[in-house]
């Protein structure tokens, strides 16, 4: 389907940039929403503050990408409009970020695996030929670096903790691993943008990502990387898990019920 569509319809660079910015924005928005679900339920007061700050960073990041997407589209949609009035099929986020929080081990495993890729992407985007994209990437980079540091410290702590914490973390990794392939599998849009020097070639990021994961897992009580024969893909095309619809119900409820409502 993708091949047919790209062969028969000539897409402009702005359409590609728009879709790519939705992808970046939706990753941050959906993960930010997931993190905010912890508020009021986190295992300790310090983690209450951590999750709300992680969520804030991500929602702030989403706002920057989605506002730029809206400006490029030129139809008057801003970040709020794009966040609140698109349906699941139009979301372009990776599947890993929409997976439900599970326990704390699952949440930090998801955050570590994704944030490490996220950091590599914004580092490369900081050098993008697209100045507007580079400006946003340079702005969010130090914040995402902090996310990686935070999540990594929890991998070490749980992996090298008790038998129970290690087992829970390993179970989380086993369940999440099939979503990691998508982080390094560009679609046609990202390939064209990589050729233009706008987006990074994701395939060149995987080796470093995997090397760090292996090293950290090894140092964290010897966590195993599971063997997955077939990675689960589809987020960029809008083929989401059932979980995204439920997440959007909550995220979008107020604007759907009272369109245009402001604080």
């Amino acid at each position: 389907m993708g091949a047919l569509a790209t062969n028969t319809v000539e897409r402009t660079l702005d359409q590609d940039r728009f879709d790519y910015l939705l992808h970046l924005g939706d990753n941050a928005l959906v993960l930010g929403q997931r993190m905010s679900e912890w508020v009021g339920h986190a295992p300790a007061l310090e983690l209450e503050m951590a999750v709300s700050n992680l969520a804030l960073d991500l929602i702030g990041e989403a706002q920057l990408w989605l506002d730029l997407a809206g400006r490029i589209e030129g139809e008057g949609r801003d970040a709020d409009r794009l966040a609140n009035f698109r349906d699941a099929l139009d979301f372009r986020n990776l599947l890993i970020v929409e997976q439900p929080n599970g326990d704390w081990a699952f949440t930090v495993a998801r955050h570590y695996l994704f944030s490490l890729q996220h950091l590599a992407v914004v580092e490369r985007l900081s050098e993008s030929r697209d100045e507007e994209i580079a400006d946003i990437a340079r702005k969010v980079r130090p914040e995402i670096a902090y996310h990686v540091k935070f999540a990594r410290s929890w991998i070490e702590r749980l992996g090298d903790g008790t038998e129970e914490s290690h087992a829970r973390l390993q179970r989380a990794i086993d369940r999440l691993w099939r979503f990691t392939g998508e982080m390094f599998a560009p679609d046609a849009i990202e390939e064209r943008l990589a050729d233009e020097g706008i987006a990074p070639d994701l395939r060149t990021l995987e080796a470093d990502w995997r090397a760090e994961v292996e090293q950290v897992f090894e140092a964290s009580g010897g966590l195993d990387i599971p063997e997955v024969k077939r990675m689960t893909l589809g987020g960029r095309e809008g083929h989401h898990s059932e979980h995204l619809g439920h997440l959007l119900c909550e995220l979008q409820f107020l604007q759907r019920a009272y369109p245009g409502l402001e604080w």
Partner: protein
Amino acid sequence: MSDTIDEARIREVLESVMDPEIPVVSIVDLGMLREVRRAPDGGFEVILSPTYTGCPATDVIKRLVEEALERAGISDPVVRYQLSPPWTTEWISEEGRRKLARYGIAPPVPKAAPDRPVACPRCGSEDTEVVAAFGSTPCKSAMRCRACLEPFEHFKCH
């Protein structure tokens, strides 16, 4: 608009605009003021750097700046945020660092010396530890002094 209003006067007004979450430091102390310039229509443009991407104070600060300028008789100032170059804690002034410390918030360690211990803003001891990587606002982490046993906040190096 009065002819006596110039850039220096605008900077002076902005020095009175305090961070709503850390009310002892002004946005100038924090290094948020990038530029004051004349717009083609003769008005003034004030360019600010946002601190943290998700900081809820960002919108409030813009409004406070507009209100302060209007109170000072500077009508229709244009206040804009500019992402690039990205704000860093290195831009916090020496005066700002002193004010933070007096308020009980340890100022950020310099980027050039990231391993330097964070001194307790109360007793000055360098025997301190991190309690939590995130504090009450995006810009701070929670710490504790092992010498005087007091908890305190640290403005994170960014």
